């Protein structure tokens, strides 16, 4: 009984780590830069394939590839905001119009990125074996690669949280999240901060993708699934709360693992049911104001 319980909770936490990382990225992009990035999952996919390619062709340790793919995707995200979304922002009369337009633009981006990825990497399912050894945790066996994943997800999120809490740039980001106009008046270079946030979102997606590829098979069409999970988690945690997204990720992971234990076919149904009920009952999320 206790072993089963542990089993469910631990596998929930392992999945939850990835969810948290994905959601923190989206939360940055939506909570601060006001772009509900439907192509978030595509950045995860690029991160996953980057890791896969580097490991397969050059033999780079998948954990090291995080440090290679991350910055590249950060730059892509940064310049994407500087070009595409900045123009959109300039043409939009209100914040709501910008949110609608940027959502659609990111939908277009999804098409573009996915198509390019299919052209380069094909549409087959790919996987590699990394640290695939069992670790005994209180009577239940868990693969070591998932433990690494969880560890890195927590470390990355914590580091980012400390960055937000204690650095000048972190303070500027938080100010921009609260009120971009006033933050701008207070001397925050607002365009730079919003672009940085979008870049950080892409960075998180890349990390998440790299970690995912260590444990699960990857395809070029995997993005949408994770985008949707990210949206659910972000709503769960409150649309503009980064801490909320982090906690929400683990919560959803555990819920998912409980439901999977009872009836595997219902896991996604449960996610969407939680999502819909939450939006109706408490649209500001568990930690929202």
């Amino acid at each position, binding site marked *: 009984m206790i072993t089963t319980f542990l089993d469910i909770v631990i596998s929930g936490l392992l999945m939850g780590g990835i969810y948290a990382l994905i959601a923190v990225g989206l939360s940055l992009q939506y909570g601060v830069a006001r772009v509900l990035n439907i192509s978030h999952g595509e950045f995860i996919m690029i991160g996953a394939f980057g890791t896969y390619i580097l490991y397969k062709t050059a033999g780079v340790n998948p954990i090291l590839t995080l440090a290679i793919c991350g910055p590249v995707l950060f730059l892509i995200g940064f310049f994407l905001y500087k070009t595409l979304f900045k123009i959109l922002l300039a043409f939009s009369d209100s914040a709501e119009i910008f949110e609608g337009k940027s959502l659609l*633009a990111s939908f277009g981006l999804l098409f573009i990125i996915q198509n390019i990825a299919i052209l380069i990497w094909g549409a087959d399912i790919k996987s590699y074996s990394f640290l695939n050894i069992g670790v005994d945790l209180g009577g239940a066996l868990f693969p070591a690669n998932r433990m690494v994943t969880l560890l890195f997800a927590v470390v990355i999120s914590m580091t980012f949280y400390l960055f937000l809490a204690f650095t000048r740039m972190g303070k500027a980001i938080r100010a921009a999240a609260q009120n971009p106009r006033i933050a701008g008046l207070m001397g925050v270079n607002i365009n730079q901060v919003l672009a940085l946030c979008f870049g950080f979102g892409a960075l998180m997606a890349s990390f998440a993708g790299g970690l995912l590829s260590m444990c699960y098979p990857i395809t070029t069409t995997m993005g949408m699934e994770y985008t949707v999970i990210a949206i659910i988690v972000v709503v769960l945690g409150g649309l503009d709360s980064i801490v909320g997204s982090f906690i929400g990720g683990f919560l959803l992971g555990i819920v998912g693992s409980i439901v999977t234990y009872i009836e595997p076919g219902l896991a996604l149904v449960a996610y969407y049911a939680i999502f819909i009920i939450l939006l*109706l009952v408490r649209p500001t999320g568990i930690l929202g104001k």
Partner: protein
Amino acid sequence: MDITTLKSKKSLIWWTVIFTIFILLIFLPFYTQGYAVVLLISILVYVILTLSWVMFSGSTGYMSLAPAAFFGVGIYTSALIGKVFPFPITVLVGGMASFILAILVGALTLRLKGIYFAIFTFGLVMLIAYSLLFFEIQVTGTRGRFVIVMDYNTIYFYMLGIFMLLLLTTYLIKNSKYGLALRSIGQEEDAAAHTGVNVVGVKVMTFAISAFFMGAVGSVMATKLTYIDPFIAFSTTYSFMPVAMAIFGGTGSLYGPIIGAAILTYLEEILITKFAEVYMLIFGAILVAAILYLPDGLVGFIQKIWRRLMERNHVDT
């Protein structure tokens, strides 16, 4: 010539043009065969979805990503009762089922503002799709269903009929006090409520009427698909495409969404047949470019150029 006769003359020309187009469309299957009708069916599906979407979202500013939900409900209605009832009744039931779903959804959610409404409606589509998939596999033991087959000409005439009805409904709403109420909600909802507009009632009703047409076109479309499963019926493509087409054409006028849907559907057909590998790439690029450089849509852009040309003429004379 004074201004009123000029106006009535202009509207007379418009009505003649619309009337002629409809006569041509009605007789089209009799003088062409094969592909033209199939293409027009695809175009009509998206035109109806886009126009229905604009009916609610274009004027109120609430971005609904629910078209796939209502479209899918229509498709499933057709699969469930299509073999039992005569087809016109199936179409009507498909529309009504979506209508009722929209009233429920609308009453529950229209207090959600901005992006919350968009992601709620998006989640709704996915919830229905996954629940239905679970139900089909667990209870009926199959993944999909077969739908009754009809010939393309019949499908075409049903689509055309729904399109005409939708056009009439949109026109009537636009030129009634309800249209005015809708636009006032879109501009400033609180002010609309204060001036005596039954904000919730008007929103829910319009949402439901637009859903009726999406459901109806879905139940006709099912017969063209012939085989359906939850992910074919509730594909998110049907949610995003109408929005993209409306933005591309321009939501300010009645013909903007029609032109947008027609052009993009035609483009999609060409790209899929000729450049299948890069179809998504080109389509995505066009979508992004349209959002970036055509803020008022294609129609708004053309109107702007037209106005500029006109002004130049005035200055010259």
